[in-house]
């Protein structure tokens, strides 16, 4: 019939499942050595460096990138497997996660050769943390309203303005930021934005951490006061960053991080209810697993399309919308089920402490990286409604 959305039943090939066993063994070894504790929800950033180096030594950062920059040219499906194993084990990947998922691929596609030659090997070695400078104090989802400016000067550019809600900026070595280089035109609101690689140690950058609902500091405000960037740090086309940003999003949107952020809550729940014969608990659990399995199958299907060189924009948005709405609701759903358990059969206080973390953090899941409303707009476009 008329509407074409594809979710073929892609199965991961055997070589991926072999890699999975290797990743599991590696993670078990890291836990045994005390590098991280899978039952701790957030590790301090300083503690993540050793883990990043160990992952780098396995060749699992930038593993799908070209060999000339130090990558392994392994498949997108293999990266998918490493990623989901890390998520399911709650491994602390924050040191390299953003760079591995999206900043590196953006640099490979659009950055100057000297930047690629210098920065990509740093990422691959686990030595470069990236943040993403998109939202501003007066423009969140409406990126076209961005006002932070880049002005052309001799030998480079000067940055002025501010970014906000920038996750991990206080620990980041680099930012890929969106800056205004021209005014938007009447015909094209998207015109005039340019992408730059910013060294976060540059003079004139001030990072102000923002305390969050979780009690942690992940977000930041980043101020730019006449920060100088050399010409090489321009990424892609002047005034044409919008197209670059959207092509990046198919990779960003459909990954397993879109429904496994609260897998720690599921782990805590399963430990508490293990062996329960309460049909209400088991029925509720079964529904959640049915939903989780379906989303993972859809996500693997999108990974298969990306591997095949397609650009499944609508399908990616569908996976992210279904995934984040589910992920956000998981603590609430589990709360309804655990209430049926005898209070004597599990450690109520320890359970609550873990679950409260997820309830607090879950509120962001349908906002970060494209809100529910933005995603449904993309799906509506895919259906021919816009």
């Amino acid at each position, binding site marked *: 019939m008329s509407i074409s959305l594809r979710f073929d039943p892609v199965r991961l090939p055997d070589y991926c499942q072999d890699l999975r066993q290797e990743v599991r063994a590696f993670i078990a070894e890291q836990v045994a050595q005390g590098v991280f504790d899978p039952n701790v929800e957030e590790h301090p950033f300083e503690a993540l460096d050793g883990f990043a180096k160990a992952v780098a030594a396995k060749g699992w950062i930038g593993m799908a990138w070209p060999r000339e920059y130090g990558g392994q040219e392994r498949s997108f499906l293999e990266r998918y497997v490493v990623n989901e194993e890390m998520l*399911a084990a709650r491994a602390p990947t924050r040191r390299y996660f953003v760079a591995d998922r999206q900043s590196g691929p953006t640099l490979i596609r659009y950055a100057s050769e000297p930047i690629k030659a210098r920065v990509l090997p740093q990422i691959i070695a686990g030595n470069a943390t990236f943040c993403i400078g998109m939202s501003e104090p007066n423009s969140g989802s409406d990126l076209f309203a961005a006002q932070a400016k880049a002005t052309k000067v001799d030998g480079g550019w000067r940055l002025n303005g501010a970014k906000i809600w920038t996750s991990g900026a206080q620990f980041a070595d680099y930012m890929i930021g969106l800056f205004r280089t021209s005014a938007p035109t009447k015909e094209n609101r998207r015109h005039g934005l340019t992408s730059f690689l910013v060294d976060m140690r540059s003079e004139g950058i001030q990072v102000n951490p923002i305390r969050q609902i979780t009690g942690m500091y992940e977000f930041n405000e980043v101020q730019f006061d006449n920060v100088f960037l050399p010409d090489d740090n321009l990424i892609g086309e002047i005034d044409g960053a919008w197209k670059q940003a959207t092509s990046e999003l198919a990779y960003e949107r459909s990954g397993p991080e879109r429904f496994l952020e609260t897998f720690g809550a599921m782990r805590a729940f*399963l430990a508490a209810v*293990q062996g329960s014969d309460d*049909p209400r608990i088991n029925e509720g*659990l079964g529904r959640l697993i*049915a939903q*989780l399995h379906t989303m*993972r199958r859809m996500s693997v299907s999108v990974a298969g399309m990306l591997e095949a060189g397609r650009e499944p924009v609508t399908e990616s948005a569908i996976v992210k919308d279904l995934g984040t709405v589910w992920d956000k609701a998981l603590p609430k759903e589990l709360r309804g089920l655990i209430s049926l358990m005898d209070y004597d059969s599990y450690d109520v206080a320890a359970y609550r402490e873990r679950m409260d973390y997820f309830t607090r953090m879950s509120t962001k899941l349908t906002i970060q990286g494209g809100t529910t409303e933005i*995603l449904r707009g993309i799906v509506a476009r895919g259906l021919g*409604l816009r």
Partner: protein
Amino acid sequence: MALDSDDIHIATAERIFADHADLQAVAHDRAGNYKAALWQAVVDNGLTLAMLPEASGGVGLSLDQAFDLLRAAGRWGISVPLADTMLAGWALAAAGLEPREGKLLPLVPAPRGKLSIDAAGRVTGRCAEVAFGREAEAFVALCDGPDGPVIALLDPSICQIVEGTSLAFEPLDAVSVDGVAVSSAPAGGAVTLPEMAATARANQIAGALETMLDISVAYAIERKAFERTISKFQAVQHLLALLGEECAAAVAAAVSAGDTLARGDSGPALLLEVAAAKVRCGEAAEQASAIAHQVHGAIGFTAEHPLHRLTLNTLAWREDYGTEAHWALALGKHVSAGGADALWSLLSDR
């Protein structure tokens, strides 16, 4: 949303459905007079044999193609026992019994029934809700036998049938059995008849949701209100986006379960895939039909408009061969017994 538009068998089936079960024509045919010609065409073109191996008189379709065919039937809201006859024929073949022509219906007792067979081949028990039960020319029953599950071919003369009506105004009958089977054999490969049947219904639901999405989007683009087509309202766009997402999830879950059966997977993997398909398609049927009706407004509530056929069929199909709760409970029991690492292994192996 066809994954399979390049498949000649599916294209042929869709042509038969279009000729004999046009959605609008069927909506106008309150007496259901279209059904006799549709069934004849379905039989004449071998569609009821789609799940049989070629050696047993099949038409050379793989099992996943057979499920694709059922999804196509779902797209047309087909309400003759095509899936059911396919399944019953498959069960006979999988148990090594002689094929039987005609309108066959499977009796899958769990969760709403129980059937036993003794050493002399006498079958007793009852199935509470059997779609199209009164139309059976023969039943193919999955029974508890003295040495394990048994497939038995039953003549309707040993059955007492109490007629009932489904949500979709189709026959939904209680079947009580007391008599000797025509033939029987250890179930063998047919032991997965419940999984096959649930996956069949999941694919029918998924297909119906594909059409629901198509006609709802088309209607929103054409229908004007407040001086604009309603497709221009963001509230309507977001509703339709959700309908698209539910439809996509249903198709993905149903196709994945069909693929699992075609690969011959068994055990917990099969339970996961089939339960997920039946649960997720049932949930999607509820959400999607509610949205489709909201978008259509009053016209969708009329018997003249074909939407109600899709709605009522998908909601009725939730009931057959295990509801969402039945399959969720089976899956949840398995998962809660094993813990988180076992769960993750199960999911990631797929």
